């Protein structure tokens, strides 16, 4: 008889198989590092951006190859729920972002005590990763923390009255915060993948 422990393990296997691409967290680590790089390098040193893009693209290729060779691959089921999560939810973000940006311009919030851009980043993080957060609780937590930090009027604590996420001199806090969040979340996803898929025994046979 399958024990409850085995059922839990099988649930983990099914969750990781369903969304294998999401657990290949080193991709997100590369994106996060790129954002951190932008936070330090972008303002005033635009000549560094192009090499940074090429480096990030190269690293993404290396990471993709690493995952294919170490963990294998699956072809996901294209269910209606998956299409909604992958396409419709992120698409909903665009009109919502436009509305919020327009409202922030109308009400003069572009350099105010709250950060609409920070809130939108948190929302995008939640939409792009949800709603299947069973083994990925770090995403709603990180998105909620970023959203809270964005809507709290932290600008009243700064001499300029501007929210820290709106500062555009290096290191820029918003890309720095978002990049750090992506690095941490990516490493946690990778850890889940490694724990769920233990190394295959090495033999000389071929498949």
């Amino acid at each position, binding site marked *: 008889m*399958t024990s*409850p422990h085995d059922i839990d393990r099988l649930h983990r296997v099914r969750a990781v*198989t369903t969304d294998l691409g999401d657990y290949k967290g080193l991709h997100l680590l590369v994106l996060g590092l790129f954002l951190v790089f932008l936070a330090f390098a972008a303002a005033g040193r635009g000549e560094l951006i192009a090499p940074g893009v090429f480096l990030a693209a190269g690293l993404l290729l290396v990471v993709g190859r690493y995952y294919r060779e170490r963990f*294998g691959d699956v072809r996901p*089921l294209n269910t209606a729920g998956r299409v909604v999560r992958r396409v419709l939810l992120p698409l909903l973000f665009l009109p919502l972002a436009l509305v919020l940006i327009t409202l922030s311009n109308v009400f003069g919030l572009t350099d105010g005590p709250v950060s609409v851009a920070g809130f939108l980043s948190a929302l995008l993080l939640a939409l792009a990763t949800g709603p299947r957060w069973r083994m990925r609780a770090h995403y709603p937590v990180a998105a909620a923390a970023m959203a809270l930090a964005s809507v709290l009027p932290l600008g009243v604590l700064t001499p300029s009255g501007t929210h820290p996420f709106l500062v555009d001199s290096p290191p820029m806090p918003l890309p720095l915060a978002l990049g750090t969040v992506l690095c941490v979340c990516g490493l946690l996803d990778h850890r889940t993948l490694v724990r769920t898929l*233990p190394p295959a025994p090495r033999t000389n046979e071929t*498949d």
Partner: protein
Amino acid sequence: MGTPFEDMADIDRLVHEPARLAITSALLSCESADFLFLQRITGLSKGNLSSHLSKLSAGGVVGIEKSTDGRPRTTVRLTPGGRVTVSAHWDRLLRLHEAAEAWTDPGA
């Protein structure tokens, strides 16, 4: 649906063996998976995994496809009938799991 004991008696032995249950559970959650991924899921050696896949294939639960263009690659998927069998098996397992959790010893 019968009693939990009748459900246990009806369990499909071909699918329920632990390694094969892990293989079919993974395949139930995707369109297809390659050999390496199934090896990582089960922790089996290539020979053992091949043996389990052969049994599942002989039972009509999975279909195996070998491509030789470029790097040799083995892809495994549930057959339509296999998907029904494994889904039913999962439903039964979850029912038994719930029944086991709800069960209280009448003598206690």
